[in-house]
């Protein structure tokens, strides 16, 4: 829910929206490719990955020591490396993006948190406290760690497997089905919206006023909503034609192998150790 100033020269909202849609599709396609790779995590049972990486996120959230959170981050990087995920991609997609967002939130805490003064900015008389520095460190390290672990999960497991693995946490079947359908339609609508904006862009000559831009934005959203409803009707008919009468079944075909059990024990003991030392 961000707002930023419109000092963009000739690039208008259409181009920016196209960029956003494009990067989301790009991310989804990259995830699809890397999830079918031959790395260490890709071979594991999705349930072990979902539970294990969620436990590590929880360990970093519970830790009250900065070095423990840094250790979780290191573990996440090691997991990414043995799963053949590009560290450069993680640095640009996760670390840099998270840092810009969290730093904007954390920097004022350097000055606003009461405590022992360790430095005074010359000229401004603003004081940085040791507590402010620690709290900013907590915020940045925790959000970087959790974002890295989430990315490792998403880029080593097909999306539908992650959703199916949620059954492990007793998430109701209907909810898993809705999540799965939504995931598919997001990709379809992303493509639809992308085409819609591309075709609009190709028909736009010269600059538009902000009022015109707003009207186009609303009209495009309305058109997308229309397509959404049309699709919903078609999907409903298709479901009915295939015999959908309200009962939902999903195939729980995951099987734990020896390696999965070993990984589960590894995740559990690592998390327990981190929670213990991080108290």
């Amino acid at each position, binding site marked *: *829910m*961000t*707002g930023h*100033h*419109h000092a963009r020269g000739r690039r208008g*909202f259409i181009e*920016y*929206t196209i960029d956003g849609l494009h990067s*989301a599709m790009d*991310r989804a396609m990259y995830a699809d490719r890397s999830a079918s790779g031959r790395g260490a995590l890709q071979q594991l049972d999705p349930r072990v990955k979902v539970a294990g990486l969620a436990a590590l*996120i*929880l360990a*970093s*959230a519970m830790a*009250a020591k900065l070095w423990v959170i840094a250790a979780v981050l290191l573990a996440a990087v090691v997991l990414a490396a043995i799963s053949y995920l590009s560290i450069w991609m993680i640095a640009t997609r996760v670390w840099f*993006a*998270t840092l810009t*967002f*969290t730093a904007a*939130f954390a920097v004022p805490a350097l000055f*606003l*948190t009461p405590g022992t003064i360790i430095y005074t900015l010359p000229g401004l008389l603003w004081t940085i406290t040791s*507590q*402010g*520095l620690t709290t*900013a460190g*907590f*915020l940045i390290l925790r*959000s970087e760690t*959790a*974002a890295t672990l*989430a990315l490792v999960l998403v880029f080593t497991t097909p*999306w539908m497997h992650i959703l199916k693995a949620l059954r492990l946490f007793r998430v*109701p079947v*209907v909810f898993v089905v*809705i*999540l799965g*359908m*939504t*995931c598919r*339609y*997001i990709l*379809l609508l992303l493509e639809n*919206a992308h085409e819609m904006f591309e075709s609009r862009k190709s028909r736009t000559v010269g600059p538009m006023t*902000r009022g015109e831009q*707003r009207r186009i934005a*609303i009209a495009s*959203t*309305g058109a*997308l909503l*229309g397509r*959404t*409803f049309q699709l*919903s009707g078609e*999907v*409903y008919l298709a*479901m009915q034609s295939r015999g959908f*009468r*309200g009962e*939902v079944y999903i195939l729980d075909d995951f099987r734990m192998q020896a390696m999965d059990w070993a990984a589960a024990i590894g995740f559990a003991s690592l998390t327990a150790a981190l929670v213990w030392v991080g108290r």
Partner: protein
Amino acid sequence: MHIPDGYLSPSTCAAFYAGSTPFWYVALQRVKRAMHTRLVPLISLFSAFCFLIMMFNLPLPGGTTGHAVGIGLATVVLGPWAAMLAVSVALIIQALFFGDGGITAIGANCFNMAIVGSLVAYVFYRAIAGRSPIISFRRVVAAGLAGYAAINVSALFAAIEFGVQPLLYKDASGAPLYCPYPLSVSIPAMMIGHLTIAGMAELIVSAGLVAFLQWSDPSLLKATAGNAVALEAPGRPRKTRSLQPIWIGLCVLMILTPLGILATGTAWGEWMASDFASPSIRQQIADSSLHQPAPSAAPRGLEQMYQLWTAPFSRYAPPYIRSAGFGYFLSAMFGAGLVMLVCFLVVRLMRGFVVGRPRQPAV
């Protein structure tokens, strides 16, 4: 407003997962009951749609851009319970697959935006739209204001969640472990952006799309149109809802009113002129006013204005009743009765006004 990981403590996150679960449960039960209908694909597609419109940068008046969440529109089309699910699903997918919002904070984010947002949007939409026809402009305004209110109440919840963290969670040196800003910083910081940019984006999208649906497919607005649907088809008997639970609740609350006496002290800013003469009450005022000492005599203006009107049930203790508990109960009965009487009269007047005017034909 998508709270990332690390901003809220694990216990806060757990509390919000626990707080959201009953709402999700009820919503799922309702969806299961309606499973044979079009609701499942509709919810899925609506979540996908909400996800998408969070990516549309909307140029706003004043030179900025913002994006909507779609709570207002989802509530108007799907009703509050299905909207809760649709927005939750969009938020979960954003957090899991696109890194927008934290995984530990999914419970809090869903509580703020999907649950509180949908309920606020529903209440505002129904209250403002009233019994107006489905294609009336009043419904466009109602949807816009419902979206605006929903996003702002959600932001306020998020700000409060941020603001309580430094009070509760600190390390040995006193450094906050999670969000470091107290309520005095978090609330204005969150609300300024939402009352202006994000609120406006939600308002424009909700109002604009309801207008679009009025033109393209008004039947989609029926789910939350209530009596307006009945107005369209005079042959169909109007479905009246039983008010019994509300009456029972009201009676229970009235019986419980004497519990109010248990609370000691005076509410901040509700002091009487005579309170300033008592040293113990002055101390209480100072304690609750950041240790600002209270004046030893009542301010002159307060002293003068205080005499203007003496209420018959002053301080909820009618002078002719000895028992404080019974006096409290009687005040509650009298107050509630008075409110009902006024509402009844207003409804009577409004009905005369509405019936007197020719109705606009609805689609």
